[in-house]
């Protein structure tokens, strides 16, 4: 019965138990782990480009305000947050554009453009920022953040909705 080329009955039972056991373990284990880590495997939806408008509608030399809403989905909850900023065109050139965030770097109030004094004013602590976003006076620790942008062939201005902090 136990020829050298043949497997003994005991070894056969051991092997088939191991194979069957591994299969059952995988059938139970893979769904269990997948279930627990599912939220970590979801693609982060924020960061899709946002269309601001066409360059022909955006004046030169004067900050052009815009706002957009980003909806984040966490599990079954959707949270909409609004963001805002200003497009500043210094000349006709497509490269000569600055897209600033309107979020004050002090405590996140929204700054407004004051045409008479040619500064951004934060309503919370009266801080002032220059047209380039530099801090002129007040408590903010850093200049206004800016957005990366792209100008498409037809003149459409598109920004990446992720604020980039500038060096002080």
């Amino acid at each position: 019965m136990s020829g050298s080329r043949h497997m003994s009955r005991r070894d056969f039972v051991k092997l088939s138990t191991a194979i069957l056991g591994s299969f059952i373990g995988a059938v139970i284990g893979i769904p269990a782990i997948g279930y627990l880590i599912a939220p970590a495997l979801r693609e982060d939806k924020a960061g899709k480009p946002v269309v601001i408008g066409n360059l022909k509608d955006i004046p030169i030399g004067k900050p052009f305000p815009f706002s957009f809403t980003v909806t984040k989905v966490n599990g079954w909850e959707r949270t909409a947050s609004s963001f805002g900023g200003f497009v500043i065109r210094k000349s006709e050139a497509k490269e000569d554009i600055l897209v600033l965030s309107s979020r004050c770097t002090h405590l996140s109030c929204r700054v407004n453009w004051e045409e008479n004094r040619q500064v951004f004013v934060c309503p919370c602590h009266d801080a002032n920022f220059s047209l380039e976003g530099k801090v002129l006076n007040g408590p903010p620790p850093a200049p206004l953040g800016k957005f990366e942008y792209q100008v498409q062939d037809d003149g459409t201005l598109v920004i990446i909705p992720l604020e980039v902090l500038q060096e002080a």
Partner: protein
Amino acid sequence: MWKKIYAWLDERLGLQEMYTSILDRPEPKGNWWNTLGSASLFLFLLQGATGIFLTVYYTPSPDHAYDSIQYIMESVAFGWLIRGIHHWGATLMVLVVFIHMLRVYITASYKYPRELTWLIGVGLLITTLGMGFTGYLLPWNQRAFWATTVGTQIAGSVPFIGNFILKALRGGPDLSALTLQRFFSAHIWMLPAILAALIGVHLYLIIKHGESHFPTEED
């Protein structure tokens, strides 16, 4: 190497002794109907494991209960599988526990010296039904809401203390967030604790007395 480790552990834990008394005990000649107790135990463990996994996402609040279950069913990997097993396992467990009871009754296994095993078994059946009743509300859909409205109303029809029972079950006169929260608490903590304790005593008694043999013509 492994034999040495096993021998060391066995000497201190008494593994062989445990194996002999729990799994290798003498059995009377039986049939498949005698396996329903083990099947009930397996279903209890299965419900426990899938239930623990469901609590990872389920939220027992009127604002979130329904949405969290929709999320488990549609967005979580294998969520449909784990909830499906818990859902069907619940029905199967009630069925298996009930047939187990019928088998014990028909073979007269509840007689001396196993009366306490039977009484504890009755407790296990009632607690299992309690698990079904409390779990039914948790999806917080129309069926769950109205089934619990009716179920607690029935409990409230008891003479004299009915209104008190109804308010105690609902956590107030109406079905509310309090009802959902206390049903959830009962479903995942209190009733499982009672079930586990009763199962422990039930199993101890089975191992102590051994299984009953089928009645013969002389019995």
